[in-house]
């Protein structure tokens, strides 16, 4: 920043490089740059600090369709049902544990649902957290129908007057027709049981993912109508810049961010903070 006292072609190229290295797509980077460049030419702005401010404002606006993890639970609609989905290994199970811990700490009753009936030790992994947090969990034996687990879980939540049901699903590629159909089926089970759509269907996206995140969110959204995104592993060196494109084009709000492997490493998504990280 300091070596360009006045903006010029080198300056804009350096901005573009920084964006792309942070996984902002080339197309989105050039859109942002063109817009700020045009504005700075029209208003005759040459001060680096002002340009920087304009870039940040533009980015923050792209990230705020109507975001923020709105964690207030409507007690009229018990049980509230949240479902976590996403491709393999992104952090769904770990994030469910973090959400469960958060809700427990603010006095909300939680029921965990082990709807990953496929992967080796999937139940043992989430059950570890259920025991750690002393929370009830519904599970069936391995390879049973995930829809049945979800049905039983909601039924139990209704019977026990539980505030929120958190559903962990198996990782799956958006490229697998059958596995995406399975998710749609699980959603239908929920719809029928609570007479409305799940209160949150959140896709978990790994910060280290590049441009493929766009396809992931697009396909999962098409299948399920996502209500939000959770960005994980922000404690790594990747910045998750692909979120800019996703946010801007698909208008799906980013609700939470996880920043580590400890149970309290979760926070509401803060566009200002995320923007700062993109620029550091």
């Amino acid at each position, binding site marked *: 920043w300091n070596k360009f006292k006045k903006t010029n072609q080198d300056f804009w190229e350096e901005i573009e490089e920084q964006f792309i290295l942070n996984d902002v797509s080339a197309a989105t980077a050039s859109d942002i740059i063109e817009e700020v460049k045009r504005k700075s030419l029209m208003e005759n702005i040459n001060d680096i600090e002002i340009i920087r401010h304009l870039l940040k404002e533009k980015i923050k606006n792209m990230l705020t369709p109507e975001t923020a993890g709105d964690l207030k639970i409507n007690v009229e609609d018990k049980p509230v049902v949240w479902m976590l989905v996403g491709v393999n*290994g992104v*952090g769904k199970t770990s994030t469910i544990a973090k959400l469960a811990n958060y809700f427990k700490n603010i006095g909300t009753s939680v029921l965990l649902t082990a709807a990953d009936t496929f992967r*080796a030790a999937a139940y043992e992994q989430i059950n570890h957290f259920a025991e750690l947090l002393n929370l009830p969990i519904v599970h069936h034996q391995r390879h049973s129908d995930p829809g049945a687990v979800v049905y039983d879980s909601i039924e139990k939540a209704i019977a026990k007057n539980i505030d929120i049901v958190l559903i962990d699903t198996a990782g799956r590629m958006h490229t697998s027709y059958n596995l995406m159909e399975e998710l749609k089926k699980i959603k239908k089970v929920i719809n029928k049981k609570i007479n409305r759509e799940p209160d949150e269907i959140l896709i978990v996206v790994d910060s280290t993912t*590049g441009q493929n995140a766009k396809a992931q969110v697009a396909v999962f959204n098409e299948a399920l109508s996502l209500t939000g995104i959770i960005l994980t592993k922000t404690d790594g060196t990747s910045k998750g810049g692909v979120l800019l494109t996703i946010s801007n084009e698909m208008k799906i709000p980013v609700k939470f961010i996880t920043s580590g492997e400890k149970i309290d490493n979760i926070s509401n998504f803060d566009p200002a903070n995320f923007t700062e990280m993109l620029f550091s």
Partner: protein
Amino acid sequence: FLSSKFEDLFYKIRNRGRLSPGDLDEALREIRLALLEADVNFKVVKEFIERVRTNALGQNILESLSPSQQVIKIVNEEIIKILGSGSTDIIFAGRPPTIFMLAGLQGTGKTTATIKLANFIKNKYSRRTSVIAADIYRPAASIQLNDLAKHSGIEVFTASGKKPLEIVLEGVDSLKKGGNDVIIIDTAGRLQVDVEMMQELKDIKKHIKPHQVYLVLDAMTGQEAVNIAEKFNSEIEFDGIILTKIDSDTRGGAALSINHVTKKPIKFISTGEKTDEFEVFHADRIASRILG
């Protein structure tokens, strides 16, 4: 999709006869955007485009009657040259057991790959393979490995209440005595910038001296793939890469970036969740994906 975009561009040019330098620049711009969209690292793309330009001019592309085919051919050859520059052979130890260690970021598919590699070696080389569960952090990690191992008839060593280095030392000793030819160590996922966790890996490597260390990398990794690989390489020097989750529709540009920068070969690719969805790496398959 790059090829069809190219066809449009060059169809216009073909009718005009020859390729102008401006046309070549435009073509290279298209290629640059395609490579970036494929997650190839920004700096790698820069060097790559320059090499293609030099190559194209050197091959007298401005005189060519079919410039589009020629440029695509050059790009494809350059990609394959980078990706295919290493050997995909498994190098076994002079005297058994051969010890492999798998490492990488969280969630990239290491535990699954440990079993896949063991299974692959068992079937292809008829060697008695075994695995060690050295991840003591992730809940149910050893149960996961144990489960997968039992399913494939692979011997597994686990030990609770011990540090990873102790587990590996004990495991190698026990599995060696058990007559295993191959031992594969599954390690916990870790950030390349986590000094303590990287030290743990260095300690294991120093005391065990594995014959092969493989970096397990998710094929959908973005621009940071280069920094991740370089850091793992400088800390523990790996011998090869296992590229996972190829079954997503990711273009896999991280593969090109890492090969170009570390010069280490991609040995295997994982193409799904099943144990048999694992194969030896073929440069031309991945090359055609990167170009789209």
